[in-house]
């Protein structure tokens, strides 16, 4: 507030004339000080030599400026024929030339400093700066203690997946991405898998192309949560989205190509996904994901669409349809269709996931089997604590031609996630599962304890590094 106003308020009780006089006195006191501060200071005495030296320096600077201007003009001419899309966001010289601004760069900032500040984004040229790492690496891991009530089952400490998530930006629009996962299976031996290997090209917001091995965009969970328990609230994925090598029944991974993007739809936020790939093998004893050779010429296809409306922040709803043909030797071919629909609400504190699937297997000339499945999960964060509840269900026929061992599995899981630090979290979970068919899946040890035993407990530490 102005000192004048302060003075006004203080002197409200004074008579008008006195107040006016007081103000005039103040003004007379203040004005000279203010005006004095605006007076130009007396010119210091300088000798002729100093003046001459300054004039010389001005002449040098003017010459230097002319050279720079000529260089800028030269670059502008060279740049004028180049499409704007070829201009990368990092080059000081090119950017300065392409920008309409005629002002100088911010003072005291060198070109090299400016370029070093942009190391997080793409270099303009394709030349690799050998002084910088070309890989961005983040790591995720988990470790747990698990137990269940099934006869013969032991409590165990288990090392989960150790995941190195590696990306490398090859250019402004092309990126390499991989997930290198070190994991242990029932034989207690480590193995290494490249769970995702992708070369991605982003042309614009409406078209991004990817090629390699990726998570099939069946529904929501499979592409929202990859090989890291850090991002997911619960200790395990829903049974329906368990990985192929851990007893899962869906084609979680696919090797092929993928196109994704936004569809102009205003505030609806419509997106599409289209995938073509090898599908999964029909041989139960082979590697489920056909990374190198497809067992048949038919290609699996997946189409998905979802909306993210502006009006409901955090809401995503969509569907997907996956189609493949499984060819088992000496058996009729099986048409496979996986239809999925979901609606999720993800907000910083609150999450509610709902997803339902129908897996349809149609052996040629035989009975058609349809397996329904769903899960629902709700959680809310209270500071460092996030309690959660999940209910999941799948009911497969005993004669299901692809996964006859699954049967009925349904029940709740309740748990608590406690974020100890920004990089470590402790999860405690209890599962109660109703089973129509019990026992290890495909002869393998149950990785998900809730798949094996009616009751199971898990304590898991997740971390990122």
């Amino acid at each position, binding site marked *: *507030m*102005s*000192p*004048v*106003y302060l003075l*006004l308020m203080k002197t409200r009780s004074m008579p*008008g004339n006195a107040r*006016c006089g007081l*103000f005039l006195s103040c*003004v007379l006191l*203040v*004005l000279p000080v*203010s*005006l004095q501060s605006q007076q130009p200071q007396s010119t210091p005495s300088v000798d002729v030599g100093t003046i001459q030296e300054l004039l010389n320096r001005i002449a040098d600077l003017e010459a230097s400026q002319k050279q720079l201007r000529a260089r800028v003009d030269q670059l502008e001419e060279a740049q004028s024929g180049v499409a*704007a*899309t070829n*201009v990368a*966001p*990092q*080059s000081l010289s090119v*950017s300065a030339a*392409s*920008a*309409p*601004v005629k*002002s100088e*760069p*911010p003072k005291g*900032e060198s070109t090299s*400093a*400016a*370029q070093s*500040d*942009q190391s*997080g*984004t*793409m270099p303009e040229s394709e030349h690799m700066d050998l002084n910088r790492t070309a890989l961005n690496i*983040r790591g995720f891991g988990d470790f747990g203690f698990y137990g269940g009530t099934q006869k013969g089952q032991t409590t165990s400490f288990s090392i989960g997946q150790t995941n190195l*998530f590696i*990306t490398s*930006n090859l250019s*402004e*629009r092309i*990126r390499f991405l991989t997930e290198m996962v070190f994991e242990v299976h029932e034989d207690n031996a480590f193995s290494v898998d490249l769970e995702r290997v*992708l070369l*991605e090209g*982003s042309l*614009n*917001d409406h078209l991004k192309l*990817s090629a390699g091995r990726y998570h099939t965009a069946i529904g929501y969970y499979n*592409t929202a949560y990859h090989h*890291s328990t850090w*991002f997911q609230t619960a200790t395990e994925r829903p049974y329906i989205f368990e990985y192929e090598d851990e007893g899962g029944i869906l084609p979680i991974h696919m090797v092929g190509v993928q196109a994704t993007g936004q569809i102009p739809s205003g*505030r609806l*936020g419509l997106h599409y996904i289209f995938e073509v790939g090898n599908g999964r093998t029909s041989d139960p004893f082979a590697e489920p994901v056909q990374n190198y050779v497809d067992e048949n010429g038919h290609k699996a296809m997946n189409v998905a669409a979802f909306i*993210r409306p502006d009006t409901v*922040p955090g809401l995503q709803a969509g569907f997907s349809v996956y189609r493949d043909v499984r060819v088992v030797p000496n058996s009729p071919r099986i048409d496979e269709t996986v239809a999925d629909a979901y609606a999720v609400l993800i907000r*910083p504190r609150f999450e509610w996931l709902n997803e339902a699937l129908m897996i349809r297997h149609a052996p040629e000339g035989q009975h058609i089997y349809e397996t329904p499945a769903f899960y629902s999960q709700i959680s809310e964060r209270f500071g460092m604590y996030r309690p959660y509840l999940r209910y999941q269900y799948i009911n497969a026929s005993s004669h299901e031609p692809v996964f006859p061992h699954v049967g009925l599995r349904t029940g709740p899981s309740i748990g608590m996630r406690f*974020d100890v630090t*920004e990089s470590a979290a402790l999860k405690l979970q209890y599962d109660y599962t109703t089973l129509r068919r019990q026992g290890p899946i495909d002869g393998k040890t149950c990785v998900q304890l809730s798949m094996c035993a009616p009751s199971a407990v898990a304590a898991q530490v997740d971390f990122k590094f």
Partner: protein
Amino acid sequence: MGTRVRVINLLTMVVLLALPQEQRAQAGGSVAESRPNPNQTLAIVVNRSNPIDNLSFSELRKIFMGERNHWANGHRIAIAMLNYGQPERRTVLRQVYKMDEKGYEDYVLGVMFRGDVFVAPKTLTSPTILRKFVFNAPGAIGYLRSRDVDETVKVVRIDGLRPADKGYRLQIDEPSGAGEPE
């Protein structure tokens, strides 16, 4: 209006004019309360070559959330964030991202992990460096306290409003951080 009041108003104007510009602006705050304080408004800035002049708040949020990755001119969007703990950053996290620091970090890591964005937002240590980054990168977008804006960057209107306009949304509701690197 009485003569005395007119004299007082006149004297007030004289004193205000005699004050240095910054003090004058501060003193005039109570007179023009509807004008946002330039020290407390957050300007969204882009590269001068970017043709964009106006963004709706919804579009701004999509950009910062990584849901929109390219400008209309084809350049990939490069988001510039100020360093951890600075009032401008806290304002953007609170008003645009609607997240705290941990939520923001997990969110960015998540969208990178899912492949929704290629490059995480660039974190810069000071408004000066952020200004320089936006000056140099055609696709850059960032934020600056209005007093830190100069002619090297372009201020984008949000919902049709400039930072100096009444009703502008991005207000920094906390003082400038002590010891803030500049």
